């Protein structure tokens, strides 16, 4: 595995998006993983529709029927993959643009740009997550976002951050071996995480979280997809 790796440098990551005042992080995490997997298989980066998921996806977790995808009310990336397998895939962002509010489902199967053919959960092991990231492309992950409300920059490595209270879906796009810390005057290994709160938040829309400690539960809910170009 390389010491440093960043899918942004390879062109696999779309511009930072903004979910607005809508609890749709799970949709942005899902589209980010599908965009990345599609790039890895085709070499083409296509921005995909979160609004389709917000409007149309009502899939539930097979083991917890109360954990259902519910537009701005929240959802799970693994539920969204199941929906996409059944629905046939995702439309492009430009054909089904984001509004930040739940509306009537306007999904048109004829406009599918990328199909999801399979998905997998990744073992709770940082080395395995790293290997999958390099091999498959950006990964959907869940995180406890408590420190993200006040985050401005640098490598976040809180002394205490619950691994259990996962409340935010984000996208793992890379990692670095040496993130310079102004306050500690030292370097730390870190994950590079794409968020969906616009470019003005954090490090141009990204969050750097230290690696090696399952920090804020980042290893607990990682998943990857396999895509197919729509014919």
């Amino acid at each position, binding site marked *: 595995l390389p010491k440093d790796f960043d899918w942004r440098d390879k062109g696999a990551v779309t511009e930072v998006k903004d979910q607005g005042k809508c609890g749709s992080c799970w949709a942005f995490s899902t589209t980010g993983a599908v965009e990345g997997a599609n790039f890895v298989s085709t070499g083409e980066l296509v921005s995909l529709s979160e609004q389709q998921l917000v409007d149309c996806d009502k899939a539930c*977790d097979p083991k917890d029927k109360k954990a259902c995808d519910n537009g701005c009310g929240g959802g799970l990336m693994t539920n969204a993959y199941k929906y996409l397998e059944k629905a046939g895939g995702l439309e492009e962002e430009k054909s089904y643009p984001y509004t930040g509010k739940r509306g009537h489902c306007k999904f048109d199967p004829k406009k599918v740009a990328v199909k999801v053919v399979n998905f997998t959960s990744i073992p709770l092991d940082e080395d395995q997550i790293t290997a999958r990231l390099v091999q498959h492309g950006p990964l959907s992950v869940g995180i406890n976002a408590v420190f993200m409300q006040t985050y401005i920059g640098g490598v976040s490595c809180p002394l205490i951050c619950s691994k259990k209270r996962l409340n935010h879906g984000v996208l793992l796009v890379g990692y670095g071996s040496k993130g310079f810390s102004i306050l500690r005057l030292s370097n730390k290994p870190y994950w590079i995480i794409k968020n969906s709160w616009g470019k003005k938040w954090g490090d141009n829309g990204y969050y750097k979280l230290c690696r090696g400690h399952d920090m804020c539960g980042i290893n607990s809910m990682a998943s990857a997809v396999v895509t197919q170009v729509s014919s």
Partner: protein
Amino acid sequence: LEDLTIRQVTEDRLPNLLGSHTERKFRIFMSDYGKSYSTREEYVHRLGIFAKNVLKAAEHQMMDPSAVHGVTQFSDLTEEEFTKMYTGLADVDTGHGGVVGAEAPKLEIKG
């Protein structure tokens, strides 16, 4: 979020913020992030939340010294409002929330 060194002894806390350094910071925050509040009551309410979030950022800075924490676009929101509006991962037992569907076989990572 009580300050451990200085104990508040006056009864009504929010009016103390009006005209304070915190209010000046709050006005800069409003300007930077294009915030406006429809009523005076809402303004005072948000100022109170902002003051608490400034303390929270200082706490986070102490607990997370390798990052930089401070005023962000979410500094006028309570933690509940922030979580409801800007996160959105469904509450699921993480014991199985990450392993829906097939779990990936382990990859060889030596070397």
